């Protein structure tokens, strides 16, 4: 019988000490309860420091695991953004129906509609808060640049942080405008003139929206380039780089003055 222990492998007689505790810690699985106490055996091998070594190993392993797990939270955001869109649709649909009903007759039922719509709006706020919270954690730089809402929508379209960091800035720039982009290409293939869209979701950003039309393309290109960098920092390091926001604000001021 062989026992996999966090500090090595035990064959019932001898312990083969692991060369890398973090590795053996992750492989310390056994199909059934051990017929001995792992800490007693461990103290024979590692001495009095047994618990300190165990604690250090557990901390190192779980610090890495938690980081990896948190990155998986990008899928959570993707699901939340999708849900948010559905909630919006439901709110719009119910509001329309409510108006239709009201137009014909004022009745008690309209109050029920109103309270349901109110509940949905509250749910919407909750989902938004959650998105904001998770985005601040998994994509602090993107959130800093364009806010949690836009950043989350971009992430949703990309599908995951992993895919997002592989997108070129030119793609990020038109994310969310795919439909008009394909239409334009289709027209061009048919030899017709077409306008290529210059911005997708990022158009929602005030730094683009508040510029004169002629300058929006430039700003969109700049912002997309910075977003691409921000996504990479978020994914690979996770620390906030203040200079990113500074640079887009400067560019915005420049374009506005020109």
């Amino acid at each position: 019988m062989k026992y996999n222990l966090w500090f090595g492998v035990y064959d019932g007689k001898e312990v083969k000490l692991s060369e890398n505790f973090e590795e053996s810690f992750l492989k310390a699985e056994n199909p059934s309860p051990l017929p001995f106490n792992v800490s007693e055996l461990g103290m024979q091998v590692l001495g009095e420091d047994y618990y300190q070594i165990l604690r250090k190993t557990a901390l190192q392993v779980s610090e890495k695991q938690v980081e990896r797990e948190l990155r998986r939270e990008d899928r959570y955001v993707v699901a939340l953004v999708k849900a948010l869109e559905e909630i919006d649709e439901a709110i719009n649909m119910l509001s329309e129906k409510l108006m239709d009903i009201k137009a014909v007759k004022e009745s008690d039922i309209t109050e029920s509609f109103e309270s349901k719509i109110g509940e949905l709006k509250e749910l919407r706020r909750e989902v938004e808060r959650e998105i904001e919270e998770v985005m601040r954690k998994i994509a602090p730089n993107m959130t800093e640049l364009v806010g949690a809402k836009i950043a989350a929508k971009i992430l949703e379209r990309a599908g995951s942080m992993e895919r997002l960091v592989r997108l070129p800035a030119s793609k990020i720039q038109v994310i969310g405008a795919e439909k008009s982009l394909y239409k334009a290409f289709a027209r061009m293939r048919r030899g017709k003139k077409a306008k290529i869209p210059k911005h997708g979701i990022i158009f929602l950003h005030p730094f683009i929206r508040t510029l004169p039309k002629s300058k929006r393309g430039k700003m969109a290109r700049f912002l997309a380039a910075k977003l691409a960098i921000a996504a990479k920092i978020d994914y690979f390091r996770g620390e906030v780089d203040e200079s990113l926001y500074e640079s887009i604000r400067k560019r915005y001021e420049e374009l506005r003055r020109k």
Partner: protein
Amino acid sequence: MRELMRNVYLKDGTLVTKSRYGSHYGEKVFGGFREWIPWRSKLAAMILKGHRLKLRGDEKVLYLGAASGTTVSHLADIVDEGVIYAVEYAAKPFEKLLELARERNNIIPLLLDASKPWKYSGIVEKVDLIYQDIAQKNQIEILESNAEFFLKKGGEIVIMVKARSIDSTAEPEEVFESVLKKMREKFEIISHGTLMPYHRDHIFIHAASRRKAKTF
């Protein structure tokens, strides 16, 4: 000031643990004590309702469902010469638990699924106490398998049961009855009770192992 358990006191009507550490979850800290908030910690509620655990301070504890470490932090004050293996599978609360584990030297944090005890069978030793607060439908099965892997002969168990997570449609009383019945098949019940007014529709069950001596 009245001592209720090792390192647990009632100080001017407030439950506290003796601690040399700072605040972990917003609880007040004063003169070497940390306020133990019963609305935040079910173990605190259980103690305030008059139930005690006999702890010497050097126990080995397996804690299932550690979350961000609210209760773990106080339990670590109590078993200050022991070790707590703190299992939690959600990364978000675990981050906070990690902060706690970095500060204390008697907490071993494990980001693992408590329903798979074999995965940590080569890490966790035989323990004196299993504490479980995981709010899962199959929490008793999870408890049983962990007890089989890790509970010493004569070891004790404390579990928190939330009626709604076992069965969201049945009456809480019915749920608790069936949970107690299941528990009696495997363990010796020491005591049980509600956590009102601190936690609605929750009970705690304090039990002990009933197994024959093993080789360890």
